[in-house]
């Protein structure tokens, strides 16, 4: 198959890639760019583990063709922490998931955090029902979702205590 050159903006960095047009964004992230934080749980957009932000909107990378996202701003879990994952600089959502037990096995966690990131960007003080509605495309088999709600609420609390962090720091 003929390869195409595509430039993706991932976590604030431009990445030029030469890829087949049928490559999924999920596979390009994981295999070509080594960004393995984005997970594959179901192959068919059932579970949301592969969620990334595209121009701030949560989308499932397992059903996205990478070549279609030229110039789009893509944020993966690796780009959520403002300072490359230093614990002191974690995003409030990441801290929330840690202290409230929102991550058990952790496999749904990246998708959950990115979806919640979008939620808090458009609604900084969501009710539990609004959190549940927003996360309804992200499946978890461990938590029964209760500790995930608590994690998002904890993030809201932490965000009130400090200035919100940009989605895609540059």
């Amino acid at each position, binding site marked *: 198959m003929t390869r195409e050159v595509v430039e993706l903006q991932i976590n604030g960095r431009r990445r030029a890639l030469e890829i087949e047009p049928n490559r999924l964004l999920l596979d390009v992230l994981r295999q070509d760019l080594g960004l393995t934080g984005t*997970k594959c749980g179901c192959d068919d957009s059932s579970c949301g583990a592969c969620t990334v932000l595209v121009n701030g909107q949560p989308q499932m990378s397992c059903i996205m063709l990478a070549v279609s996202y030229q110039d789009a701003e893509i944020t993966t879990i690796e780009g959520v922490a403002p300072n490359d994952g230093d614990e002191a600089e974690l995003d409030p959502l990441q801290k929330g998931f*840690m202290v409230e037990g929102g991550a058990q096995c952790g496999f749904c966690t990246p998708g959950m955090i990115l979806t919640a990131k979008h939620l808090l960007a458009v609604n900084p003080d969501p009710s539990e029902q609004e959190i549940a509605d927003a996360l309804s495309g992200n*499946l978890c088999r461990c938590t029964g979702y209760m500790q995930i709600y608590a994690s998002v609420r904890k993030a809201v609390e932490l965000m009130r205590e400090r200035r919100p962090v940009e989605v895609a720091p540059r």
Partner: protein
Amino acid sequence: MGETVLKDSPIGARVPMIDSVDKVTGKGIYTDDMAPPGTLTGRILHSPHAHARILSIDTSAAERLPGVKAVVTGRETPVKYGILPIGHDETIFATDKVRYVGDNVAGVAAESPEIAEEALRLIRVEYEVLPAWFDPEKSMLAESNLIHEDKPHNIEKDYHHHFGDVEKGFEAADYIREDRFFCPEVTHAALEPHSTLAQYYPEADAITVWSSTQVPYYLKLNLASTLQMPEEKVRVIKPLVGGGFGGKSEVIPLELAAAVLARKALLPVKITYSREEVFYAHRGRPGQIVELRTGITREGRLTAVEARIIQDGGAYCSYGVVTILYSGQLLNAMYEIPNVKFDGYRVLTNKPACGAMRGHGTVNTRFAFEQQLNRMASVLGIDPVEIRRRNLLKAPCITVNGLRVLSYGFPECLDKVEERSGWREKHGKLPYGKGIGIAGSHYVSGAANAIIRSGAPHTTVNLSIDRDGVVTIFTGASEIGQGSDTLQVQVVAAELGVDLDRVKIVAADTARTPIDLGSYSSRVTFMAGNAAIAAARDAKGKVLAAAAVKMATNPENLAIEGNQVMCLDDRRIAMPFEDAVRLAAGDGQTLEATGSYRPPDAATGGKFKGGGVGPSPAYSYCAQTAEVTVDPETGQVTVDRLIAAHDCGKAINPICVEGQVIGSVWMGLGQAVQEEMMWRDGRLMNPGLLEYRSASTLESPPIEAIIVESNDPEGPFGAKEAGEGSLAATIPAVTQAIYDAVGVWIDTLPITPEKILKAIAEKKKSETQVIKTEN
């Protein structure tokens, strides 16, 4: 030296899981995240037939395809294996027959997924299709076309237990009920699909396997036996695991397939199952028929229980012998039942093998029993909470089938949910369409008898303390998201009196960590926790002995708190922990310590056939209430609230305990109201997460966990299991709430709107008939 500020003990503290930072940043490495240079894609050719003889396999075209590096069939993999020593009935690839749609026929390793899949298409297999067995009640009458020639009537195993005298028990009963329950198959559906990476080192004739496993040690043993390699040449490493629930608690075919392909290809091979393959690999909870007969007195005292249980086990043994035994043995250890009879049949059918799933063997039986108890309470006019109080164990005790119960927090669990739910104001008093139900459940804190019988410890934990006072734990215990690494760090830090930050952990790498049997049967907190305490006490003894000499006192007068060794009679006299470590270890040495755990003989159960399964050093207990709304027009059940009080002995980390209890309840609710493996002629109709209906946030009700601490005398800091025991009670609590709401009992899972409507219609019909008869 000034006053030392004592730090709070980490036991009972809400400590974030030590690996959570890796999980929230995406830096944590799961098996499929790894790809050493040159890694090939492995793929497995699965059988399209439920039962067929393999007449021939031609792999020549696949082997000729450019980019294909290895093709393997059953001819090269004749060694039988299985998780149970008495159930070695599988081979890596089929040698003579395929026994379910999805059975493993051949494997390929190639340079890309596309080439691997093309190679599978090029493999020509000639089958002679055989009649297949799908219904366990028909299968157990089979005379010919047996699934395994050495299993007459397709019965994998049957057990017949009788404790006390049920006939006498039924004579003493005022009311006897008989019911038949059916629970279809459900599966784990952990979010991480199974994945294995294998690398063979030809110069050393050694292999390393990274796998999404709950049982690295058993995997190592099975790799050694099937690859016919010495155990010391096999290394298994468990990276992060994205959920198990029992689905990774035995050897899964891809693990052996990846290894055999890697050895042949001389390159690393990775196989990651598609979600559909995960469903077909299965090893979940078997479909189960429970015929239950229970006798009770007018006052609500149980006199006898008789159970006939048939499990639809699928095509291979897997954990089946253990599953069927749990389903009978754990009728006990919940309530005082003087007379118990159990006839259990594990039946083979031409479907994927069932295995261990959260609540292993106990869940469907518990549903049946609790439902029947609630029905009897209703007939006798006794409150369902009260009927349970009238049948409590008198712990400490040994049940009629030899289960030793030391700690028993069930009465407190009942009190707690009764109060929190407002039971007395609600039960029987809510408007039509609203209801509340209650049930109980329990589970083992690890099996007292290992599946491979020997006198060996079930786990060993080693500590290495460097001269800077940093403690490294070496443990084989497998973190699968439940928090076992964090728990061991907490336990060691508490016992040694050092900060959590000082304690590091190396886990689940068979080349570096001592033997642990794995994360299953909720054994890790109890067993690895106790071994970790023993290792820490060993280290502490050495540290205090050396410090005592230096401080001119005796070790009994010393304690370690807040990284300081101090005199109990004068806490101003102290020395830093690391100084004491250097004294104890000697110049330039690390201080080594070890501890292990084996269950006491008194906990290992009765000496009868099958008596080895069920005994545990300790049992967890749960009481649970469910509140529901039933729409009688549509049959739709909405679960409004679930409250589970769980006796975990002692919550070493309440974050983890609450997470485990809520997660169990949620999974139980899935089985109750929507999950089901739907089979048609051996094919799965719903092999996807949406089709299987794994609940999203929108179908998930509020769940509250209440921790009850009975402080088990043998548990680590009093702890027992927390990860499984709450699951079973959810189902009967929900069905009873439905009865409370609309007056019908559902005996067949899952509770669909169709079943509710049918039951309501039948109830109306029978009521009309009664009125007619009365007229």
